[in-house]
C-alpha cells in the first residue's frame, strides 16, 4: 500500500503521458484536436508566467507582450523574409528572452505594485508598436500565411495531427524545464525571494540577478509559446498581444494554482476547453469569469493544485497515522508560501 502510495504520482504521470500520445488517434475531429493543441500552447505560456509569479512572486502584467514578440518574430521572419521556421523560432525565443532581460534591468528596479504597473505599461507599448508598425507587422490587418514548420528528416508537419506531437513535445520540454528549475538551487532562490526578499538577500542570494533571470526565463517561455501559436494558427493579429491576453494567462495560472508544477497545465487546459464548450455563451464568458477570479483569489488562492494537495494530505493522514519522512519535507516545501 505504501509503495503504491509513494509511487502513485509517477504512475499517474505515465498514464497521462500515454493517453496524451494517443489523443490524435481517438480525437478524429480536427476541431477538438485544435482545442487541445491551443490548450497546450497556452499552458506553455502559463508556465512562463508561473516561473515569475508562482516561483518568484513578481506579478508581470506584460506577459502577452512577450508572447506577441515571439509570435511576431516568427511571423515577420517567415512571412516577410521567407526565413525557415526553425531558425525563426529559435530567434523568437532568444529575442523575447533577451528583451525580457534588458527590460528587466529597468523593470526590476521597481517593486510590488510598481513592477506590475511598469510591466503593464511595457505590455501596452509593445502592443502599440506592433499595431502601428504596419510596414513590419501588417498593423491592424495582421500577418497572414505563417507556414507550418519544415519537416525534420522523415517527419512532416502538414496538419493538426503532426503539429499535435510537435507542440506536445515542446510542452513536455517546458514542463521539464519548470521542474528542473523548481528543484534546483536557482529555483530555491526564486522561492526564497517570493517568501521574503530581505531574508533572501540576508542569506546571500543576489536578489536582483535572480529576479532578472526569472524574468528572462519567463519571457523566453512566453516567446516560445508565441512562436508555436504563430505557426499553428497561421494568422497573427495585434489583439493577441493586448493586455486582455495577459489577464487570460493570469486566470489560467490562478485556476491551476500559482507556484505548482501541474497548475499551469491543468489551469490552461481546463479553462481553454471550458471556453470552447461555452462558446454559445461567448458574451457571458467574462461576466462569469470575473467573479470566478475574485472567488478563487479570496477563497482558494492556491488554485486547484492547492485544493488537490489539501485533499491528498487529508487522505494520507487518514490512511497512515505516521506520514512517510519524504512526505513531510515535501509538504513543507509547498506550504512555504
Amino acid at each position: 500500500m505504501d509503495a503504491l502510495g509513494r509511487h502513485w504520482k509517477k504512475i499517474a504521470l505515465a498514464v497521462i503521458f500515454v493517453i496524451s500520445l494517443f489523443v490524435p488517434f481517438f480525437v478524429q475531429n480536427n476541431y477538438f484536436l485544435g482545442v487541445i493543441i491551443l490548450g497546450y500552447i497556452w499552458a506553455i505560456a502559463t508556465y512562463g508566467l508561473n516561473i515569475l509569479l508562482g516561483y518568484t512572486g513578481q506579478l508581470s502584467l506584460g506577459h502577452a507582450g512577450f508572447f506577441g514578440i515571439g509570435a511576431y518574430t516568427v511571423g515577420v521572419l517567415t512571412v516577410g523574409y521567407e526565413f525557415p521556421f526553425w531558425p525563426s523560432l529559435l530567434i523568437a525565443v532568444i529575442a523575447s528572452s533577451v528583451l525580457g532581460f534588458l527590460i528587466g534591468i529597468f523593470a526590476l528596479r521597481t517593486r510590488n505594485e510598481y513592477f506590475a504597473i511598469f510591466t503593464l505599461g511595457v505590455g501596452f507599448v509593445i502592443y502599440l508598436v506592433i499595431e502601428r508598425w504596419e510596414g513590419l507587422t501588417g498593423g491592424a490587418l495582421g500577418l497572414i500565411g505563417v507556414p507550418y514548420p519544415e519537416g525534420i528528416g522523415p517527419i512532416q508537419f502538414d496538419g493538426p495531427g503532426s503539429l499535435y506531437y510537435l507542440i506536445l513535445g515542446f510542452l513536455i520540454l517546458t514542463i521539464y524545464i519548470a521542474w528542473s528549475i523548481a528543484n534546483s538551487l536557482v529555483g530555491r532562490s526564486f522561492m526564497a525571494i517570493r517568501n521574503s526578499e530581505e531574508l533572501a538577500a540576508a542569506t546571500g542570494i543576489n536578489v536582483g540577478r535572480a529576479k532578472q533571470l526569472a524574468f528572462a526565463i519567463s519571457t523566453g517561455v512566453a516567446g516560445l509559446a508565441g512562436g508555436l501559436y504563430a505557426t499553428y494558427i497561421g494568422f497573427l493579429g495585434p489583439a493577441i498581444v493586448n493586455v486582455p491576453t495577459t489577464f487570460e494567462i493570469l486566470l489560467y495560472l490562478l485556476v491551476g494554482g500559482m507556484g505548482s508544477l501541474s497548475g499551469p497545465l491543468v489551469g490552461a487546459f481546463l479553462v481553454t476547453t471550458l471556453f470552447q464548450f461555452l462558446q454559445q455563451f461567448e458574451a457571458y464568458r467574462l461576466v462569469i469569469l470575473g467573479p470566478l477570479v475574485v472567488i478563487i483569489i479570496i477563497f482558494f488562492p492556491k488554485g486547484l493544485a492547492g485544493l488537490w494537495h489539501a485533499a491528498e494530505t487529508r487522505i494520507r493522514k487518514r490512511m497512515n497515522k505516521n506520514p512517510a519522512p519524504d512526505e513531510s519535507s515535501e509538504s513543507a516545501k509547498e506550504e512555504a508560501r
Partner: protein
Amino acid sequence: MELFLQQLINGIALGSVYSLAALGLTLVFGVLRIPNLAHGALYMIGAYVTYFALTSYGIPYIVAIGISAAVLALIGVIVERLVFHPLRNAPHTHHLIAAVGVLFFLQSGAQVLWGSEFREMPSPFTGVINIFGLNIGQQRLVVIFASILVMAALYWFLKKTVPGQTIEAIEQDRTGASLVGIDANRVSMMTFAISAALAAVAASLVAPINLVFPTMGEALNLKVFAIIILGGLGSIPGAIVGGFALALAEVFSSTYVSNAFSEAIGFLFLLVVLAVRPTGLFSKGA
C-alpha cells in the same frame, strides 16, 4: 499661435478629467494600498448611468451627474465589501488579480447589458463661445469649471471635515489612527465611495465630447495609473499635476508630432520615469 491656445484649452479640459479620475485612484491607493485596476471600469459605468439618466428619464445633465456619482459611490462600497475587504491581509498580487476580476465583470457586464455600440451623450452645453478669437466649446468650459469645483470640494472635505480627516489620518498612520478610535472599516468604504464617485463625475463630464462605450475605460485605466505613478502613488497634488502634464503632453504631441505617438507618450514617459526613479517622481519615500 491660435492653434496653440486652442490646443492648450483642450489640454486643460482633458487634464481636468484625467486629474479627477486619477484622484480617486490615488486616494484608494494611499489609504488602502490597493492598486485598483478596475478604476477604469467604474469610470465607464459612471458614464452609462449618466447617459441613461439623461436619455431614458430625461433628468437634467447636472443632476444626472450627481445621481451617477451617488450610484457609483454605492457600487464602490459594494466592491470594497465583497472583494477588497476579505483580501485586506493578502499579498499585494492578490489585490491586483482581484481587481482584474472586477474589471472583467464590469466591462463585459456592460457589453452584455447595453451592447458594444458607441453612444452619443446629449449635453445641454452645445454652443461655442468666442473669446479673443478662439472658438471654445461650452462643454469644455463646463468640464474645466466642474472639475475645479469638485477638486475644491474634495480638498475641503479632506482638510476641514472630521470624516475627511479620518481618511487622511488612516493614510498617514494606520495603527495610530486606530489607536485614537478611527474605524478603519468605515474609512475604507468611504474612500472607495469617493473614488468611484470621482470616476463617475470625470466620465460624465467628458462623455459628451467623446463617446460612451463598454471599453471606454480601458485606455484611461492605463493612463491614470501612469499619472499616479508619475505623481507618486497616494499623492493628491501629484495626481493633479500628473493629470494635467499627461493631457498637455498628449494634446500637443498629437498636434505637432503624430496621433500614434500621442497615444504612447504617456507610457513612454511613465517607463522612463520609473526606470530613473522606481517609486515615482514626487513620492515621499516608501
